[in-house]
């Protein structure tokens, strides 16, 4: 059984069809790239997968369970986590607290231990902190543990978003333009990191990228969206030669990067 099966998913905002009959099946362990020009509907796919939007029609089945009507926090508990195109950290909280908060889906305790500070409180808090610090160690964020998240350098903020998403122990990780605003070196490091995460954490990943060349080196399979419709799907080589894809990107500034 596929880990994720997206079936004829459509989302309309009034007259605007942001996503039209989107279909996707993913097996465990896959790393799929989702590309397309501005406004193609890429982020809309993530918003539907995470329950932020309810589909106009079609459905999503994750591990055999239909996601329709589920709240975002329930979907996170089921094992889907994401990062945001525009960074959304808990800016005034410490980096450690950012990661601890994400750990709460996995380890938590009741209100009574919280109010009365009875032993389960200390035990669970200890576990949460240990798990958070271990994860931060891996992503080289431990040194910032007590900094406010908003004071981190841009690249580190992006890394913290990924760390925080991983803290919820997802099976499916959705990365929305994780390299946006990064310089080439940072981007390269990030792509290496994503590959490593996938193997290390036994993950299935969907990666949205605006810049096609990035996806090509990383993903086994690429989907191309244009005006809400899936116009191509295949290996990076197939996508690169697909005339519809080239057309969709023509006139876009991406063409320059594309033709290199």
């Amino acid at each position, binding site marked *: 059984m596929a880990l994720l099966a997206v079936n004829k998913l459509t989302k309309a905002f009034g007259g605007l069809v942001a996503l039209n009959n989107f279909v996707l099946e993913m097996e465990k362990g896959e790393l799929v790239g989702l590309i397309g020009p501005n406004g193609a509907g890429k982020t809309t796919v993530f918003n539907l997968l995470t329950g932020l939007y309810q589909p106009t029609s079609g459905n999503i089945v994750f591990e055999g369970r239909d996601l329709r009507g589920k709240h975002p*926090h329930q979907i996170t508990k089921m094992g889907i986590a994401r990062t*945001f195109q525009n960074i959304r950290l808990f800016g005034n909280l410490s980096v450690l607290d950012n990661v601890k*908060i994400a750990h709460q889906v996995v380890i938590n305790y009741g*209100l009574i231990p919280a*109010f*009365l500070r009875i032993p389960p409180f200390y035990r669970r808090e200890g576990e949460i902190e240990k798990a958070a610090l271990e994860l931060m160690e891996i992503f080289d964020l431990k040194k910032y543990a007590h900094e406010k998240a908003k004071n981190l350098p841009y690249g580190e903020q992006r890394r913290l978003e990924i760390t925080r998403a991983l803290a919820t122990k997802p099976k499916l990780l959705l990365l929305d333009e994780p390299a946006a605003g990064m310089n080439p070196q940072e981007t390269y490091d990030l792509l290496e990191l994503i590959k490593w995460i996938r193997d290390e954490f036994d993950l299935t990943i969907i990666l949205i990228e605006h810049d096609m060349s990035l996806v090509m080196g990383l993903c086994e399979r690429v989907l191309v969206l244009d005006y809400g419709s899936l116009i191509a799907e295949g290996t990076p080589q197939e996508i690169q030669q697909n005339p519809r894809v080239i057309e969709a990107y023509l006139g876009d500034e991406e063409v320059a990067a594309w033709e290199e």
Partner: protein
Amino acid sequence: MKKYLSTLIICLVLAVFFVVVQLGINNGFITGYWVTNLYLVGINVILASSLNLINGFTGEFSLGHAGFMAVGAYSGAIITANLGLPFPLAVIVGMLAAGLTGVLVGLPTLRLRGDYLAIATLGFGEIVRVVLMNIDYVGGASGLRDIPFVVNWPIIFFSVVLSLLLIRNFICSSHGRACLSVRENDLAAEMMGINITYYKVLAFVIGAALAGLAGVLYAHYYTVLQPRDFSFMLTFDVLVMVMVGGLGSLTGSVVGAVLITVASAFLQSIPELRMVIYALLLIISAVFRPQGLLGEKEVSLKILQKLGGVFNGAVGSKQTH
């Protein structure tokens, strides 16, 4: 080890403060007027810190504190004055009634995004007042009389300490962090698996219940309740305390409550001036320290940490671990 030491020191300081004030009251060193104001400070500390839990820590904007206080005060007073039951029961019933009212007001409004809460709670406060004015069982507009005089310094002291301790324990737990994350970015919080409606309502209900406690104390000190005691001005006073002390700082709320209560005690004879001073305080703090006197900092931690460095990582470690 260090943790126990600092807890011990805090307990010691509180115990000394408690005993000194009690002796001062017994010997008439603290006169009746200042005893009243001392108790008012206590009641206001509970009001300010519980409003801060909603407005400062969870980032919702409630204007309903006078209403919840009234619900607590009246339901507590009914227990003792009308039914002749003991005071501890009044505390429990007052807090439960205010908390339940919190659920009823909070559940429909807090699940909506935006500032519906401010409008809804503003309306709620006025409705409570009008309803109370029209219920003869609680004396209508002329008020509820002959409530037993129960409140004394130990009751005020332990109510304040317990309230602050409960709020502090809540904030420094996973549940408190969830509330903070809702304030910081509700969308991201939801994506981290936080049920944001649950946490908004939870903080709101805890805040309402503690306002109810303040109401019960108020009722059993003044022994008379009138609906007009719980006008919007009361909520505004508490809001000023929270803003001056710092949204999101518990010690700030304590400082704010003490400052404002003492200031209005001195200005008792010229009530018009009181509002002018409030407005000025708000403007000054908005211009020079928009984050309030203490911002989001907690003063006791810092001071203790600096004291000789002995306590390094002791109390501070509680906040950050």
